[in-house]
């Protein structure tokens, strides 16, 4: 490979536009390009990180001063079998491409993120979970097989049976063992393009968590919205959305509801305002006072418990409702902190965290809760309990304070046996990571790393931050 690296120098960002890392971005079309880039990097003494659409909240796909493989070019759905629901894709295929391909045939991706813009390579690298994590686990549990290129140039095929150690380490392995080149997934059968959603309010954190726990078993999906401004007796109040897939026969006309024409997010708000400009109107609200009122209004609207049917994409891809919504946070952007806590300790820990955010004067503008169960991946973030994701606005003046607060959050989480998700938190440091994963897990990972990547070519800003 020969190219002028200087002209590939690109200012790459995280999803929230809150941090930048200039890197040499090399477009990848074929597996051979990955090998070429590895050779090139080795010769020049540079580190390599793969990147899809770059919409992680943190630095997992950033590699300041190094090479970033732009995987978006490897975006072919190689094989799709509507009879079995097995699909084989290149890693740059997005969830959007995938569901639009399989849905008209009566299938749906088993696990999806809150946005459909993510690539499958990225989804596997961080082992994404959805609102159905407590039922079906993370996306890794639905991978039949994948092929990855190791920095040695070897192409390796992994499944739960074959190279199982690498299978469970590379899924969720943050892209630090190899680069996915082909991913085979099992889709799930659906009998309608609609889900039946129950929505009801929860007045405080105890009810919030007990409702998540009690209503999860009778639903396929469950997610809570949490008003992080509320304090006192109302702390942790919010609304729960629990959804159920329709069984065969419940939808008299599944062909129609599964049709792509009935599966698109409306592009105008109230039928008038184009949604592409909506983020400009949201911007003036994005401050502590404005968002307090937005959250109160949201809660008042939630007080009416109701049941309705909604299309699959509307229910799943909340983050895609308003295009570029993250821009409304202003030039400092946003970050997210997500903590996974055991059932017993979640309530107290989150009460402490939310109070702390009020004390710091940095309330979260949006809180989202989910129900989880453990899985067997090496760097798993999941456990038997709940997760809370909190969005924070970043400004030029609050960065140091915000960072200090998030480190406090990490301490609270670790003290009660909680876990972190490395696609989200940006301030978790090496010390917290060691406490979280434990020396044994880290040693296992390092051993696999040595085997797959003997020259240490694969490194991201995240890897240097949490494993240095």
């Amino acid at each position, binding site marked *: 490979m020969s190219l002028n690296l200087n002209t590939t120098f690109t200012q790459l960002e995280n999803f929230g536009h809150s941090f930048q890392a200039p890197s040499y971005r090399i477009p990848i079309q074929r597996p051979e390009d990955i090998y070429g880039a590895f050779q090139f990097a080795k010769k020049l003494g540079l580190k390599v990180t793969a990147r899809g659409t770059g919409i992680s909240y943190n630095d997992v796909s950033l590699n300041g001063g190094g090479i970033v493989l732009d995987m978006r070019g490897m975006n072919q759905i190689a094989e799709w079998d509507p009879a079995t629901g097995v699909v084989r894709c290149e890693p740059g295929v997005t969830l959007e491409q995938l569901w639009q391909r399989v849905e008209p045939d009566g299938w749906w991706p088993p696990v999806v993120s809150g946005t459909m813009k993510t690539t499958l390579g990225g989804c596997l690298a961080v082992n994404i979970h959805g609102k159905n994590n407590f039922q079906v686990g993370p996306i890794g549990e639905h991978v039949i097989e994948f092929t990855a290129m190791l920095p040695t140039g070897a192409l390796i095929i992994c499944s739960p049976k074959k190279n199982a150690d690498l299978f469970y380490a590379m899924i969720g392995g943050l892209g630090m063992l190899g680069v996915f080149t082909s991913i085979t997934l099992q889709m799930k059968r659906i009998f309608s393009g609609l889900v039946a959603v129950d929505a009801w309010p929860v007045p405080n954190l105890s009810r919030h968590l007990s409702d998540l726990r009690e209503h999860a078993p009778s639903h396929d999906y469950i997610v809570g919205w949490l008003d992080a401004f509320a304090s006192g007796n109302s702390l942790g109040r919010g609304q729960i959305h629990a959804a159920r897939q329709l069984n065969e026969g419940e939808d008299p006309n599944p062909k129609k509801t599964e049709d792509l024409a009935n599966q698109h997010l409306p592009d105008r708000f109230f039928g008038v305002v184009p949604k592409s400009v909506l983020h400009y109107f949201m911007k003036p609200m994005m401050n502590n006072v404005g968002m307090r009122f937005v959250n109160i209004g949201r809660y008042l609207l939630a007080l009416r418990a109701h049941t309705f049917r909604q299309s699959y994409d509307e229910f799943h891809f909340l983050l895609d409702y308003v295009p570029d919504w993250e821009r409304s946070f202003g030039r400092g952007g946003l*970050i997210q902190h997500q903590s996974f806590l055991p059932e017993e300790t979640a309530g107290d820990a989150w009460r402490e965290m939310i109070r702390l955010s009020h004390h710091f004067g940095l309330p979260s503008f949006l809180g989202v809760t989910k129900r989880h169960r453990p899985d067997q991946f090496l760097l798993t973030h999941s456990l038997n309990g709940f997760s809370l994701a909190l969005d924070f606005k970043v400004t030029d003046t609050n960065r140091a304070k915000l960072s200090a607060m998030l480190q406090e959050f990490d301490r609270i989480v670790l003290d009660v046996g909680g876990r972190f998700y490395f696609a989200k938190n940006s*301030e978790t*440091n090496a010390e917290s990571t060691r406490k979280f994963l434990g020396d044994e897990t880290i040693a296992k990972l390092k051993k696999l790393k040595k085997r797959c990547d003997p020259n240490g070519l694969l490194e991201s800003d995240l890897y240097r931050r949490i494993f240095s």
Partner: protein
Amino acid sequence: MSESFTPIGSTQGKPAPATPLNPRRRGLIIGASTGLGAELAHKLAREGYALALLARSKEKLDALCYEINSYGGDAHSYEHNVTDYDEVPSLLLKIVANLGGLDTVIYVASINQPPGGIDKYNFASDRQMVEVNLIGAMAWLTPIAEMFQSAKAGQIVGISSVAGDRGRVGNPGYNTSKAGLTTYLEALRNRLTRHGVNVLTVKPGFMKTEMLKAAPGPTPFAIEPSVAADHILKAMKKRKQVIYAAPIWRWIMLAIQHTPSFVFRKLSF
């Protein structure tokens, strides 16, 4: 970290440790071991920059890095002679990788070797001045301009001189090297502004550095390098285009630039 150590020009506390939310900006100073370069290094370190410092003298650089790092800065030394043009691309790659990116570049490296009289000529030393002051700058700023243009971000600061504003009897080689640098920086500015890159040309007058000793005759309005560094930092923050340090030189040079040639030809400075 030594508690008793008082860093030069220290007015602020220790920079905060770097995290994604509190990243260090990344600066490269070419010609950092003494005088203005060293002062700029201290000031940028205080501002929270991670720094790559380049100069010929490894010893002086290491001492400077040690000083900066002992008060919580993050400076790395690279021994380099700016006339080793072929070394630039690989060294730049290494620096950018070590810093994790690059935001600001300051080209300070400069030599001044007057021929020693208004009737003396010395091609060898003229050539050296052009090689260090101008071609060295071009060797570095070419790949950097290319990178910043591609990234649509960055700031380039070139330390030129008031000596580049007119060709004078005392030091034709130095005048030429600095005039060339000023023009080169202007051309870069005209190319890069549209890509969101700022190019600042600094024209210092006399500074109380080693180089001052080379200057024949009187040296009016000479300022300490730390004062010049303050002027430069302020201009960098405001993303200015051209500054004189000290500012009074703007007016002096305005007069000198407009002095007609028939007068200039009779002058002896």
